[in-house]
């Protein structure tokens, strides 16, 4: 019997908190990738607030669902959601990207309860997720594996090695969510390596491929609850920098750190957004 520890949190509120924590964390740490965190904050909020089975007092719960952040540069968002869910004190977030800290800019599992895998080099997470999903199948376990990929990350050939394997082995306990924000490091994804038709690519590789609005919590909840006979890829259309007007769809907020007035403005906008 699967231990049921899923909670129903106010996912809108959770998303807002993830965003505010993350903007503060990159400001304190002088770090970056805030655009990537903001684009997937709603996905994290829905997953942790409404979908996943986990127990913050027992991060190693054998039947827990597993989440791998393959786009490891958005680690701040994962630390924020884990702190909000009670895996560790919110106070810890102040250590993000500080000297001697374990809260690295790219997500780390060492010393951080609730993180399954340290990542940072793109194209690693899905293969490990495939291994986890395969192990669950071999042991006839019910838990599911969720892997968050960046759309730019799909440039990596290793992603497609894993995609082929998962389909061949019908790993229907594996769910990929592609954060389709259309921007990568230097240019747009389409200027860099044309990715479309992305939905069709996953489909012809044997996956259930479902496009959603990556900021629509009801739609995300509904799709992420689905089960089928094949692995599922949720292509979440998102806006990089979502929630901070001057960051939205701006490629430079992949690397910039919000400071001074811009930092204050970002926090103000995000705090107000909760009232909408």
């Amino acid at each position, binding site marked *: 019997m699967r231990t049921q520890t899923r909670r129903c949190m106010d996912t809108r509120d959770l998303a807002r908190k993830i965003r505010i924590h993350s903007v503060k964390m990159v400001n304190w740490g002088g770090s970056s990738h805030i655009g990537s965190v903001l684009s997937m904050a709603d996905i994290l909020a829905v997953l942790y607030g409404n979908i996943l089975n986990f127990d913050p007092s027992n991060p190693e719960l054998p039947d827990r669902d597993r989440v791998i952040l393959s786009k490891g540069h958005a680690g701040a968002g994962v630390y924020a959601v884990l702190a909000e869910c009670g895996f560790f004190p919110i106070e810890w977030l102040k250590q993000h990207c500080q000297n001697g800290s374990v809260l690295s800019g790219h997500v780390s*599992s*060492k010393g951080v309860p609730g993180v*399954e*895998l*340290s*990542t*940072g*080099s793109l*194209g*690693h997470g*899905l*293969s*490990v*997720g*495939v*291994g*986890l*999903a*395969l*192990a*669950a199948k*071999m*042991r006839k376990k019910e838990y599911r594996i969720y892997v968050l990929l960046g759309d730019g990350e799909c440039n990596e*050939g*290793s992603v497609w*090695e*894993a995609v*082929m*394997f998962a389909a061949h082995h019908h790993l229907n306990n594996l769910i990929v969510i592609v954060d389709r924000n259309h921007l990568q490091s230097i240019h747009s994804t389409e200027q860099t390596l044309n990715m479309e038709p992305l939905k069709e690519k996953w489909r012809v590789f044997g996956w259930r491929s479902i496009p959603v609005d990556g900021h629509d919590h009801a739609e995300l909840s509904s799709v992420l609850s689905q089960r089928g006979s094949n692995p599922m890829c949720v292509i979440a259309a998102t806006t990089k920098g979502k929630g901070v007007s001057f960051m939205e769809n701006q490629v430079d907020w992949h690397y910039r750190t919000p400071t001074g007035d811009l930092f204050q403005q970002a926090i103000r906008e995000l705090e107000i957004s909760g009232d909408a």
Partner: protein
Amino acid sequence: MRNAFVRSLTELAAADSSVVLLTADLGFGCFDDFEKRFPEQFINVGIAEQNLIGIASGLAMSGYKVFVYSIGNFPTLRCLEQIRNDACYHELNVNIVASGGGFTYGMLGMSHHATEDIAIMRALPKVTVVAPGTDWETRQATLALAELPGVGYLRIEKNGIKDPGSINNDFEIGKARVLRDGKDVALVSTGGILAESFKAADELLIHGISCKIISMHTVKPLDCGAIIAVAKNFDIVMSIEEGNLSGGFGSAIAEAYLDAGITPHFFYRFGMRDKYSSIVGDQAYLRNHYGMDAGAIVDRVMKTRRHVQLAFGSKLDEQFPKING
């Protein structure tokens, strides 16, 4: 060696259902019996080495004892970052088996010559690097690695020599095996090229030179105690490896000597000196071509002995008094 590995792994799989074998589409015919008997414990991931290591890591995170198999450089250099970030950093029981160490696949060309794998794998923190010299060592290493936490690298070849038995016939990861005692020269080798040490030692004996032969099946963690003991007792110590010298087995020994502040009077490393193989040939041919076969060892030992005698005569110990000698 390959057969010894497969037989040992099959025994492990029979006794323990958490032992699994992944291959990246190599080992044609080798695993037929394994696959037939343990279909749930055998997965051919396809020709995809990065995915091979990622999947192995995911399985090991879930409690499996994982062996991955491929040949030459494919399971190491091709997916080095997956090994480092996913398997090693997370301290997972993933054992990487490369068949075709050195020039095993000599005729197939440079792509198939595994000549930097030892150096590269030993550069990764906490990886256990094992290159057995005999079939028996291959078997013992396979059994040991299954139970050893963390990432293991097992470098094997197609054919291994029959184990001559050691003075204390045991096997322990990280412990040198003394296979023959001698008094003039110490030959320390890793991998199947151990066979050349025996041939060289036999020939040197005809010239009145006796060699101690050590099989250093574990390159990492290196048995520094054994290495240092040899330096204290022998004027001439030579390391033998089938691969490039930079950062490899002989370099590991040199590091150990310098770290300990104890060196033999003469130390020589057999191996390739910063080059890629650009010709093909069978393993014996290429060992000869790159100066690491029995003939090369005999030549070098004779020359070094002459040099020692000419330069220092019987005053060697006065010139270079042994530390703690």
